[in-house]
Each structure stands twice: as structure tokens, then as C-alpha cells.
């Protein structure tokens, strides 16, 4: 990486400060907080939830989420978990991921084993993550691409009916929005 950067700088294609700026941008916005805000709002506001499921790209803009740390805003689709369906997201070809909502993907998301096995044997792989999906629930695996990025809307845990939106936001972890975990009540 050092040799590559030195050559590109010498050729005047970019400066090291440009690279520093990109890294800083991702470092500041690297977390899954935006995704958690979207999920918590959807739990608290049925009309928002309906709009989110109909047109997620447009609807997350209501929370001021305009694009990822790279400035891009891919088409976003939100898939909702229910008692009948559990959703899980992968990018089988590389590492496509909803940056604007979840930051950069964790290492396991980019691993060849996850990319191939979650498609072939999702129930087993989810068990390895510590998530046992009931046999009567269908598991849907969504393959991210350049065109579409997916976010899972997890089920609101029971026992949280007296919690407000900021409190709920704090409960929602990245793994639940990829679909390899569920949100747990505190």
C-alpha cells in the first residue's frame, strides 16, 4: 500500500492528505448507529415503518441519512422479520453492504466461508452465530449487489413496550440488522 500510494502521489493523481481525509471520514461514521436509529423509529412509528418497507432509500432521508461515508447512496431495501420469516443478508461476490446505515462490514461478512455457506446452509450457519431459528420460520437470504443493499428490520423484543426511541436505539446491534442475531431485551 505504501509503494502504491507513493507512486500515485508522485504522478499527481492524489495527495496523502486526500487519503487521510477519506480514512477520517470513515472513522467518524463507521458505526451502525444510523441503522439502529432507523429500526427504532420503525418500531415506534407504524407510518414510518410502512414507508420504510415501501421505499427505504427515500424514507431514511427523513432521519437525515443521505449517503454513506464515501458519499454514495445505494438503493436500500429493508426486509422485515416476523414470526414466519427470518431474513439474513450476504454479499456473495465481494463485500457490498449498506455503508450509510451500518458503516463498514465486519471481517466475517467478507469471509469466503460466510459468503458461500450462508446461502447453502443458512440455518446451520446462524446456529453457529448463536441464533437458533425455529424450524417453522422460513429463512430468506438476500444477496447484496451494486444495485441493492439490504437492511434487516429485526423484531422488537418483548418487554420493551415502555422504552422510548433513544433507549431502543441503544439495544440494536449491527448483527441484528445483518440478520445473524436478534435484538434482546435489556
Amino acid at each position, binding site marked *: *500500500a*505504501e*509503494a*502504491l*500510494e*507513493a*507512486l*500515485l502521489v508522485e*504522478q499527481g*493523481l*492524489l495527495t496523502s492528505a*486526500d*487519503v*487521510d*481525509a*477519506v*480514512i477520517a471520514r*470513515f472513522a467518524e461514521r*463507521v*458505526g*451502525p448507529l444510523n441503522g439502529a436509529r432507523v429500526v427504532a423509529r420503525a418500531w415506534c412509528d407504524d407510518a414510518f415503518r410502512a414507508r420504510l418497507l415501501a421505499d427505504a432509500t427515500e424514507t431514511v432521508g427523513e432521519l437525515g441519512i443521505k449517503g454513506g461515508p*464515501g*458519499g*454514495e447512496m445505494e438503493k436500500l431495501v429493508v426486509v422485515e422479520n416476523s414470526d414466519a420469516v427470518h431474513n439474513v443478508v450476504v454479499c456473495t*461476490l*465481494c*463485500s*457490498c453492504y449498506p455503508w450509510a446505515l451500518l*458503516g*463498514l*462490514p*465486519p*471481517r*466475517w461478512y*467478507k*469471509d*469466503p*466461508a*460466510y459468503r*458461500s*455457506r450462508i446461502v447453502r446452509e443458512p440455518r446451520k*450457519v446462524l446456529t*453457529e*452465530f*448463536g441464533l437458533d431459528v425455529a424450524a417453522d420460520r422460513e429463512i430468506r437470504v438476500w444477496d447484496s449487489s*451494486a444495485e441493492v443493499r439490504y437492511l434487516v428490520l429485526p423484531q422488537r423484543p418483548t418487554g420493551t413496550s415502555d422504552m422510548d426511541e433513544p433507549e431502543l436505539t441503544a439495544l440494536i*446491534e*449491527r*448483527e441484528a440488522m445483518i440478520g*445473524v*442475531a436478534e435484538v434482546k431485551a435489556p
Partner: protein
Amino acid sequence: MSDPISVLGSGPARAHVPLENGEVVFEAPWEARVFGLAHALCDAGLFQWEDVREALIAEIGRWDATHGGQPESAPAYHYFERFQCALEALLAARGMTARSALEARARSLAARPHGHDH
């Protein structure tokens, strides 16, 4: 194949771990540099992120085709090594940075005395 490491990658055992929020996404500074380089080149208008993505798919596809069938004997998979190879291939294809120049530069950097940048 019941070993969770097979899902979570090589490296230390992280059995049944949904990893924590706020996990460090770059394991070494060079990973952040190469990732930052790709974005900076896009910001500069030299290519689109889609070009990077296609180069990455091609590079990862080559790795999967070579090693994907034998996960036990495959070398450890490092995403950012694939990322760097993909970026180098893209730059070479666009005539921006020849591999020969890159290799020569890497050799001269490697030949510096130890501790030069500390």
C-alpha cells in the same frame, strides 16, 4: 464443519460471537491506506466506485475459484490483500500505475534500514 471458526474466519477462535458494535474494521494501518486510496481516486474522478467493485469481484472470484473448493488447505483469506490486488489490477488496466513500477518501488521501500519511520 460445525466449528464456528469456519464462518468467522481464520484467526483466534471467536465461538458463537456476534461481534461487538464499534469493532475495529482495519486490522492494520495499511488496510486503511489502501481502502482510503481507492476512495480518494474515486473522489478525484479517476474512476467510479463501481469500477473498484468490479475489480474486487474479479479478484475475489479468482481466489474463490482457486481455493474455495478446499477450505482446509486454503491459505488464510485476507480481504484487504484481495482489495489491494484488485486496486493494482484496476490501475494497471487503466494505464495509471504499471505493476513493474510498483514492484520496483516496493523493493526499494523494503530495502530501507529497519526503523526508518519510527
